[in-house]
């Protein structure tokens, strides 16, 4: 059967490197093969294969009962996915752009997140889709959505930075009995520099555990998604001046791996949080107060952050570049803290 597999789900089987997008396609495909309860819903994901072609070829292979083209009604089909999850299925819902998760905000926060609490049992449901700026998509096709959901008990939020994690985390998300929001940065989907050859084995990356992307003693940088790459670039620049920063890739935002952050901060004494999302009310605040709770005595400087500025994502390329946090912003902030 593997002979008629779509190319973008068979690269690992043939030993080739995969992009983040292909890793996600592979995870979906393999989970659907492994567990017939897994099915997909979303706009134009069937015949068209999805706006980013993540599900190209899925309809032919798995049929219309498991690859469902929905009307443009994110609230309605997310609610329906919840009903299917109640009945033991494991829906994976695609938002064409994660910006369009907003109409599903009500059902996600009030209904889906509270299912376990209300005694309605497990709610094994994943909502996934592309996020992030840098693609000249303007305010409605470029947002990061984590902070819309971070405050809601009962949800999990995942945001991978590389193909290996993306595949392993998505498999964990699909196998998790809680609802999971899964963010995929468009800037990483096909990025050549982060293609990698994955192992053939059916591995998972557990939710809730951060990863140390780079070890260092001078400063802890906590980040995730595309900003892991920007932070590593800044680290390389700083290393030329003998500054060794530690870069922690959160991978899962909720639950937050505060043990990993605290352990690092207790070693470096300095913390910089970097997120692409806008500033006020961003995740940096929660990390800051948790480290006040956990690591105040170890802090040798203020907890600072590098983020996008407080504005909708600009359409104009010039403005978008100005809006987004840059490698130099990170390096500047890191130097400031290291010298503090």
């Amino acid at each position, binding site marked *: 059967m593997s002979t008629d597999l779509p190319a973008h789900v068979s690269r690992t089987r043939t030993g080739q490197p995969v992009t983040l997008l292909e890793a996600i396609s592979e995870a979906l495909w393999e989970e659907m093969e492994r567990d017939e309860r897994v099915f997909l819903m979303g706009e134009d994901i069937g015949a068209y294969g999805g706006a980013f072609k993540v599900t190209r070829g899925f309809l032919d292979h798995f049929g219309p009962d498991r690859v469902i083209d929905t009307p443009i009604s994110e609230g309605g089909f997310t609610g329906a996915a919840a009903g299917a999850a*109640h009945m033991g299925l494991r829906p994976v819902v695609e938002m064409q752009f994660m910006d369009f998760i907003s109409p599903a905000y009500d059902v996600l926060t*009030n209904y889906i997140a*509270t299912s376990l*609490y209300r005694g309605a049992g497990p709610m094994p449901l994943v909502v996934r889709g592309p996020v992030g700026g840098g693609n000249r998509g303007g305010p409605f096709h470029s947002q990061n959505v984590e902070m819309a959901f971070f405050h809601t008990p009962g949800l999990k939020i995942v945001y991978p930075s590389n193909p290996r994690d993306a595949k392993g985390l998505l498999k964990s998300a699909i196998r998790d009995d809680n609802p999971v929001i899964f963010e995929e940065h468009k800037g990483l989907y096909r990025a050549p520099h982060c293609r990698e050859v994955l192992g053939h084995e059916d591995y998972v990356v557990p939710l*809730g555990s951060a990863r140390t992307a780079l070890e260092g003693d001078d400063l802890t940088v906590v980040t995730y998604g595309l900003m892991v790459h920007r932070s590593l670039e800044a680290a390389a620049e700083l290393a030329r001046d003998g500054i060794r920063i530690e870069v922690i890739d959160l991978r899962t935002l909720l639950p937050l791996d505060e043990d990993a952050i605290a352990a690092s901060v207790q070693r470096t004494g300095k913390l910089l949080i970097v997120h692409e999302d806008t500033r006020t009310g961003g995740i940096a605040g929660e990390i800051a107060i*948790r480290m006040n*709770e956990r690591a105040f005595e170890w802090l040798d400087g203020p907890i600072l952050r590098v983020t996008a500025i407080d504005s909708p994502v600009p359409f104009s390329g010039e403005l978008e570049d100005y809006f987004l946090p840059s490698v130099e912003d990170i390096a500047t902030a890191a130097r400031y803290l290291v010298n503090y």
Partner: protein
Amino acid sequence: MVREPASPSRTSGITGFGRETAEDLAFHGFQARFLEEGIRALARAGDVGPDYTSFTIDVRSTVIARAMYRAADGSGDLCYPGGHAPGPSLAFGATPLEFLRHLACKGTSAGGAREGGLSWTDTRRGLIGWAGACGLMSQVLAGAALAFRQRKHSRAALAFEGSRALDAGGWHEGMNLAGALRAPLIVVLDVATAAAAECAPSIGAVAEGYGFAYAELGQDPFDALVREVAAARRRAVDGAGPTLLALGPRSDSEPWALHERFLESASAEWGLAGPELAAIERAARAGVDHAVARLVKEPSPDPSDALAPVHTDHEPFPPWTRREPRSPGPVEPQPGSAHVH
């Protein structure tokens, strides 16, 4: 009265209405009636919230839910019982005490007393409770129905909603999805009470638009309700599409008139004699009385127990925010607790 009739060739024994059905419906009617009284009494005594002092159960919801339940031989179907929840919930197999525990947020209730009121959810029992937004539940039930179809189960889902569900865009999205995917779903709209700004459209036209069969139910006798529901259910599980049923007004002054009429006809049509009916009535009353009496003696929940399985990832009570920090022993995983990481 069905506007868009079912494929007429499809009728089945399940719709058969005989003496046993009549006994069953007589019992469930009595139960709903006494439960309504019981809930009002509990409210007056302060054992459930004050809003329940004028709480009502529409007996037709009970009959419709029971017809569903019986048509599926008591297992498999799914019901969102709506605003008259106690009736349909008992029709789906809950006991009066179980329901009242939930209503009163007792520590022994389903869901550990975390969520109460009319919104009891127990999917194993086929019950999905209310959760906040008007019009939302038809989406959820549509998805559950879709799951039945995907898994090739002969099951159907039933949702009771207030008529102002029509106002809500989310309801339209649910209907559209259910119609487009031919989900085995039956939606019952309670149009008994009008509102300040009710949605304009003809409900029948809306149903037609979304590919639903449609019927209006007024003061129809129980057997007509049962047949209507059984037919709708058959269409649903046969893949012939969903149905919308509109429940017209009932008399506020005689809310139990339909049940009374049914009891009158029960002896004539199904040979249920007076003493038999009296025995059914006594049994129903005894069950509810027992439940009400037991309820008030039951314990309240223990918060640290009841809330433990729903915390997110970190210890909710750092030592500086509670007088007595909780013992750090591991929390036993509870049944239904999915919060592992």
